[in-house]
């Protein structure tokens, strides 16, 4: 069959896999953002123990491979009594891993806001809360958005790994189609194109729009 016929017959199946990919990505993203903020802030508190905990977490999850973490959560945790569904295992592994990278980005972002801003806010008699909310956070946003955007694209690509723990995402569907049809070039080629389309024509424009939004807000305030 030619490529067109291939697409007509199999693209719907691959599309449903892509939907699962997006679900995994969004859930993992929510978890990662939460962890990034919490641990990023923990890294810059004045309390040494809290800093230490965050440091250990970040270095641990950045220093080990995502696939190893994924397999551990999927295969070893049940031996300790905790069996998470494949979907949850994937989301948690991705969230914990990318949360660690994100925490460093958040930390770098907050520390990159010029000291002068903190001092000026103090001099102008802003309360601590107002200072954080009106001055520091908007500026942090613009600084962290480009590296955060990179991480988000990385996260989308990393979701492909959950196929190895039986989550029926785009990669899994591609493997199954390959197993039954052996049209490897079409199957994996199309999978690559779908990932590319998702990253280049949906995710990245959205992230660019966020950056523009953040920049405008800072300009205004």
């Amino acid at each position, binding site marked *: 069959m030619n490529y067109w016929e291939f697409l007509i017959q199999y693209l719907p199946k691959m599309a449903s896999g892509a939907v699962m990919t997006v679900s995994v990505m969004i859930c993992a993203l929510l978890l990662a953002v939460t962890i990034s903020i919490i641990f990023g802030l923990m890294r810059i508190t004045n309390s040494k123990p809290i800093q230490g905990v965050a440091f250990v977490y970040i270095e641990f999850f950045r220093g080990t491979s995502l696939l190893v973490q994924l397999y551990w959560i999927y295969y070893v945790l049940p031996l300790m009594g905790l069996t998470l569904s494949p979907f949850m295992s994937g989301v948690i592994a991705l969230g914990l891993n990318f949360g660690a990278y994100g925490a460093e980005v958040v930390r770098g972002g907050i520390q990159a806001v010029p000291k002068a801003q903190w001092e000026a806010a103090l001099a102008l008699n802003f309360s601590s809360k107002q200072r954080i909310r009106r001055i520091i956070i908007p500026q942090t946003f613009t600084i962290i958005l480009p590296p955060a955007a990179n991480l988000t694209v990385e996260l989308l690509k990393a979701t492909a790994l959950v196929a190895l723990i039986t989550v029926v995402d785009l990669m899994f569907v591609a493997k199954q189609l390959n197993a039954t049809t052996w049209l490897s070039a079409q199957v994996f080629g199309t999978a690559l194109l779908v*990932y590319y389309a998702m990253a280049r024509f949906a995710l990245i424009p959205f992230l660019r729009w966020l950056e523009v939004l953040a920049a405008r807000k800072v300009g205004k305030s």
Partner: protein
Amino acid sequence: MEWRWEFAIEILPRMLWATGNTLLAAGAGYAIAMVVGLILMFGQQTPYRVVNIVVRELVEFVRSTPLLVQLFFVFFVAPQFGVTLSAWTSAMLTIGLHFGTYLSEVYRGALEGVPKSQWEACRALNFSTVYTYRRVILPQAFPIALPGMGNYLVGIFKDTPLLATIGVAELMHTANALGAETYRYLEPYTMVGAIFLIISLPTALGLRRLEAAVARHQGKLNH
């Protein structure tokens, strides 16, 4: 399920041998990536606009798609077109191309980070292109590129487990095989994680020291 030390010690030799394979794969892959990165970067600066655009699109495509899918593509498709490569070779080429695209962006950013005035001064002083690059531009670009290059070195090392899916006998693959043979997963998978930590943490630390030393050598302030 309890941790069995005798079992852990029993499988340690096999895991250490696999670690050697992992390091070899990471090293070879990175070497290929460094070269590919250069080619891809210069491929975007040729005098021919079409070539530049094609290479640019290729870089974007490879950068934006999962390494895992690329590995499967090369593993399954290449033979169907008569290109028979060992699992090792297809793994190296794929990972080299994938990280080569990342490195090409790092190189590009580093070159752009060198002030334009440097280039102009070299032209004014009538330096040859080779001399310009070798003595003026690259030494200044290198410290800028180093953090990115270091990150991707650690990154390529941590991506080697993906090679297990196409049968390369590295660390993750060995852990999988051990688990399947002995029905014990706790020790193999935990040891894999520990070995990765033991290797990547000092490496990351060493890279940071290297960046600081290079920056100091250049007379730039430590940031």
